[in-house]
């Protein structure tokens, strides 16, 4: 049916040549060497040292430590709350980023700066703020001291900026015409968000979520004052690690550290897998 002709299609540029990068030259080899030494000194060697310390008591020693009732409770509380907080952040962080990018309102600039306060504030200061606001002498009449809500709230406070800050630039870069194109094809605003906008944001959301989770798992300063560190109730893993060290039990501290490390790694891998799926599905 088609009588139209066109010049044969040429392959579009070789932008994707060398997917694994270019072969090493002398200079780039040196760069790689420096990067690896730096990375090893700062990350790989300390992590290996923790793993070695944790394995000092053998597998049974390790297992005994982490299945100790009180230790297991701290890990459960920490990881559970961190997951919950990350879920909340995925929704709220994306929403805040959306408002900051797409809406114009009075005080937007101020809000932009305030978002970073939980980043910039020393965490113990954050802890003090939370204690004075929601502690026993609360001016609001809300006393959540010594409860698990305190842990949840402290995690929320310190992890707020991560997803906002990773999603915001990506959202700002999105071409509004792409959404207009979807609209003229009959797509409702919700469908456009779900099938067009969200897949573009997913990598940023996943990166922010990973940061947010990792930060929450290791959080100490902001919750230590308000949570009360009650064993079996509000004690988190970082507090548990500190008390192990104080009780001259570095093996036990290292064992908990390794568990946290493994869980964080698993979460990052899972987030990456989810992100790839959402991207493909569209």
């Amino acid at each position, binding site marked *: *049916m*088609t*009588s*139209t002709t*066109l*010049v044969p*299609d*040429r392959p*579009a*540029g070789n*932008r*994707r040549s060398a997917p694994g990068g270019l072969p090493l030259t002398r200079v780039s080899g040196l760069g790689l060497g420096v990067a690896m030494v730096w990375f090893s000194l700062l990350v790989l060697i300390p992590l290996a040292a923790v793993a070695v310390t944790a394995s000092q008591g053998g597998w049974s020693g390790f297992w005994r430590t982490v299945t100790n009732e009180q230790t297991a409770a701290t890990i459960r509380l920490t990881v559970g709350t961190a997951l919950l907080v990350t879920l909340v952040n995925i929704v709220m962080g994306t929403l805040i980023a959306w408002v900051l990018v797409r809406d114009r309102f009075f005080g937007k600039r101020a809000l932009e700066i305030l978002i970073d306060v939980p980043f910039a504030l020393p965490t113990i200061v954050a802890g003090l703020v939370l204690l004075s606001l929601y502690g026993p002498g609360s001016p609001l009449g809300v006393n959540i001291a010594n409860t698990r809500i305190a842990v949840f709230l402290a995690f929320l406070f310190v992890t707020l900026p991560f997803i906002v800050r990773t999603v915001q630039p990506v959202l700002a870069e999105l*071409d509004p*015409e*792409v959404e*207009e*194109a*979807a*609209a*003229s*094809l*009959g*797509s*409702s605003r919700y*469908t456009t968000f779900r*099938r*067009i906008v969200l*897949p*573009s944001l997913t990598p940023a959301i996943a990166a922010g979520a990973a940061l947010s989770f990792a930060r929450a798992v290791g959080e100490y300063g902001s919750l230590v004052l308000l949570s009360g560190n009650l064993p079996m109730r509000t004690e988190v893993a970082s507090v548990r690690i500190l008390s192990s060290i104080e009780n001259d039990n570095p093996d036990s501290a290292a064992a908990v550290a390794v568990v946290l490390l493994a869980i964080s790694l698993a979460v990052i891998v899972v987030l990456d897998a989810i992100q790839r799926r959402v*991207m*493909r599905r*569209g």
Partner: protein
Amino acid sequence: MSIEIVNVGKRFGDFVALDEVSVSIPSGRLTALLGPSGGGKSTLLRIVAGLERADTGKVEIEGVDATGLPPQKRNVGFVFQQYAAFKHLSVRRNVAFGLEIRKRPKDEIRRRVDELLALVHLEQFADRLPAQLSGGQRQRMALARALAVEPTVLLLDEPFGALDAKVRKELRDWLRRLHDEVHVTTVFVTHDQEEALEVADEIVVINDGRVEQIGSPDELYDRPANEFVMRFLGPVTQLGDQLVRPHDLQLSTEGGDQAGLPGRVTRVTRIGFEIRVEVTADDGQTVTVTLTRNEFLALGIQADSAVRIRLAPNSPTTTATSPAQRAAAPSLAATH
């Protein structure tokens, strides 16, 4: 009439983008909205698509009042200058998007998408991502995506503006032939008068938020309604107080015809097949005349030859209002 635009006005702050514009666009034709950048033509197209709201006036599409309808309900296909590709979806999924939204059966979607990909010659690229296509291929994909939902009208906003000159010319020819096959009412925006003259059945010239003239390419070129249209559609030069086309002027040497304005050749420039001769008339006015190489050789003139300038019979002219406007108009000739 397929699209009826009645007294549409639009402001952005103090800037008047459209000032009481009324246009009727016929069914099944290829219409160009032609004008300089910032003249309001893209705004008008976006109002027809529902991507922009008119402050005043009315838009009817195929007899239905669409003024208050959101873009989703207008059943128009829209093609953007920058392709607006869904980057995370393959070419096939891009084209299928509108049909998937409409929850058509899977095999019907596959059949229709295959048809469209064949129409835009992208069959072998179906599984690529938009980033792996060239600009021209991406724009053809965008066109197939817009046609997939069988729109009542197809709107293209500077569709070839982001492409290089050669691809632009190819796609222009191809759009013309595609339209002859598909026959969907098509409106495209362009600031390139050559593109409009070559492709369109009808041209609407828009400038400063107003319609300057509506007509076929021949009508516009041969009977420009005013100075703006005259200047915008092709090269002009001034003879007395009349604007004329440099190729409508004839030169004669002293020995020949004694009619016409006397003057002297001041400069001769050859641009490929055409010779551009600048003549300073005895009253001091500089007139540009373009001749073919053969005409030029037959006259045997050179710099400083005495000549007479005459307008060929039945040539379009408009009265020049003010010489100051010259610099603003994108004319090719008559620049000093």
